[in-house]
């Protein structure tokens, strides 16, 4: 077979390029997290780039911040912790801060994508709930890699026309009765919710911590997910997707954040929310400083601003989450009477401890054994169960 001249040229070019690339060294970036901590907040830089959850950078508190400090805020919204981690890994230099939940923060710390912060520069930190001042998901060996922000539960959202009383168990979202009318987040960490439900439904599996799953336990959760697959209308990627699904009547029950509930309620949609008897997973968010932040002073100013009691209250009520700052309660009552109680801002530590907060699953089972499935397995199994 005669090879045309152009094909020969093409072939030689490709071969040469293959050799060149193969000889390349490691292309991964290595950022040092040993930067000296600043001792005071310097002059603001005029700009601030944030990766945030939808609802975290509302004009209500962002505009006054911009006027006060001159830092123009640009927000990139992400729909999941995985997305935030990927954004920070791939383009961390373009962002100053990220509002990472507990299942993203340790990956960012381990990957060198974030740098330590000086809590002395954030006076309100002293007023935080003790459990959120130095939680294990953002403080490693006494070094603070961010400032806690707010926390909340992953609750069940339902249409009040279909459910006249709130469902009492998570089994509702696994029930064929509502086939084609259920939605859950398109997020591998959702496996923990399935595990939490199974820990009560099938104690023989021996699940004690929904983030520490051995292979048989993970397989049981994935099996239930696969059974649930035909019942799901859509796996929502962004909070606004779920809001539209409920508004248009496409779904009647699903797993949601308080943000979707408060937005739908404000729009007059017939929805209710509840935490069923098996309990709930939750998330505690931290504003973390990027290892390559170009506007660190604006970043510290932002953290101070959103940690202040007034802004903590505004954000808590707007989103439907619970502030880390204990002084936020009176401010919340000023904006909306009864909100402090509604969002458990004055709840005892027992309520906080009952929520199973998001954590990145690792192979260390915490009881001396090392056979738990790490997050990469969770991600693979999730794609297989929902594809």
């Amino acid at each position: 077979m005669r090879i045309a001249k152009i094909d020969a040229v093409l072939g030689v070019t490709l071969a040469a390029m293959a050799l060149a690339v193969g000889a390349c060294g490691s292309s991964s970036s290595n950022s040092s997290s040993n930067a000296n901590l600043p001792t005071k907040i310097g002059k603001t830089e005029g700009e601030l780039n944030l990766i945030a959850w939808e609802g975290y950078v509302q004009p209500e508190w962002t505009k006054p911040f911009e006027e006060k400090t001159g830092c123009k805020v640009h927000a990139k919204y992400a729909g999941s912790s995985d997305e935030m981690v990927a954004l920070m890994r791939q383009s961390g230099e373009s962002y100053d801060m990220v509002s990472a939940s507990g299942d993203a923060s340790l990956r960012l710390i381990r990957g060198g994508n974030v740098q330590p912060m000086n809590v002395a520069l954030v006076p309100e930190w002293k007023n935080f709930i003790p459990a959120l001042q130095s939680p294990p998901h953002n403080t490693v060996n006494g070094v603070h890699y961010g400032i806690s922000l707010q926390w909340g539960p992953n609750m069940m959202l339902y249409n009040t026309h279909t459910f006249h009383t709130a469902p009492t168990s998570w089994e509702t979202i696994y029930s064929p009765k509502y086939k084609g009318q259920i939605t859950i987040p398109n997020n591998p960490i959702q496996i923990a919710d399935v595990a939490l439900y199974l820990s009560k439904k099938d104690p023989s599996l021996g699940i004690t911590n929904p983030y520490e799953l051995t292979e048989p336990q993970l397989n049981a959760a994935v099996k239930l997910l696969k059974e649930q697959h035909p019942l799901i209308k859509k796996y929502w990627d962004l909070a606004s997707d779920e809001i539209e699904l409920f508004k248009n009547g496409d779904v009647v029950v699903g797993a949601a954040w308080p943000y979707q509930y408060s937005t739908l309620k404000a729009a007059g949609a017939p929805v209710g929310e509840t935490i069923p008897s098996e309990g709930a997973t939750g998330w505690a968010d931290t504003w973390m400083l990027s290892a390559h932040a170009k506007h660190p002073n604006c970043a510290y100013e932002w953290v101070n601003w959103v940690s202040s009691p007034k802004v903590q209250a505004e954000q808590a009520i707007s989103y439907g989450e619970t502030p880390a700052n204990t002084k936020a309660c009176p401010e919340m009552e000023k904006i909306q009477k009864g909100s402090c109680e509604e969002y458990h801002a004055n709840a005892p530590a027992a309520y906080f401890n009952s929520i199973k907060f998001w954590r990145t699953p690792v192979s260390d089972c915490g009881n001396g054994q090392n056979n738990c499935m790490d997050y990469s397995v969770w991600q693979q199994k999730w794609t297989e169960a929902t594809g």
Partner: protein
Amino acid sequence: MFRRPWLRLVLLLSAPGAWFVLIYLAALLLLFLSSLWSVEPFSGKLIHSWTLENFKRLVDTPVYRTIALRTIGIAAAVTVADALIAVPFALFAVRIAPLRLRKWLFVCVLIPLWSSYLVRVYIWRLILSHDGVLNWTLEKIGIGAANIGYSNWAVWIVFSYIWLPFMILPVWAAVERVPDSFLEASADLGAKGSRTFRSILLPMIFPGVVAGSIFTFALTLGDFITPALVGGSESTFIGNVVYESVGVANDIPFAAAFAVVPLVVMAVYLVIARRLGAFDAL
């Protein structure tokens, strides 16, 4: 430079040639090379050691086969639907419509391309949703709600709508190239309309259909936005897995491995299309 014509040629081709080699070929090569690497799970850093693990995972796990077949299947369905719409439309516009109407029809085909892709997909999402116009109309005329929002039906409809101009244009050009004399000769020889259509028109415009099908098939094969926006729980495409592997799991090697699949499918498709005469008019 004028004494050596080959030098002129080299200078002329160097810029597009460089673009082709450096950007297009290099990107394809890096894609293939990445698929042979792996990633460290907790920190996300690439491990530059050769492995076939990603391809093995693709082959061993049944769900990826389902996703690949679904992607190819819907791409084929979109191609067939668009061909069935484009051929009568082009025949009417070129052979039957008066000149003024033909010009307007041409503009109408192109106008949707002026608006944003996302806007068009979101509009369909609203039309097909539970409370949308389609269900409302069907209930008013007594058929009952179709409820095809967030399903593969919705994905098929939306893709067929979005890529239709890309199918109509090559078919239109092919119909214009059919000389009137052929059709007159066919009539003179005693063929009725349907026989002329089957034996003369269709073979002559078929290469145009194949050329248009390259667009509809390839564009559907690689898309992930429409399945994400209007698809349901059974609508994951190859593109969605690639997007989630890169943007969510940060497993670029696996994404690259899965991305090689549509490349191979398209290479086979192009070889077949060439055999069927799609590039004859070039």
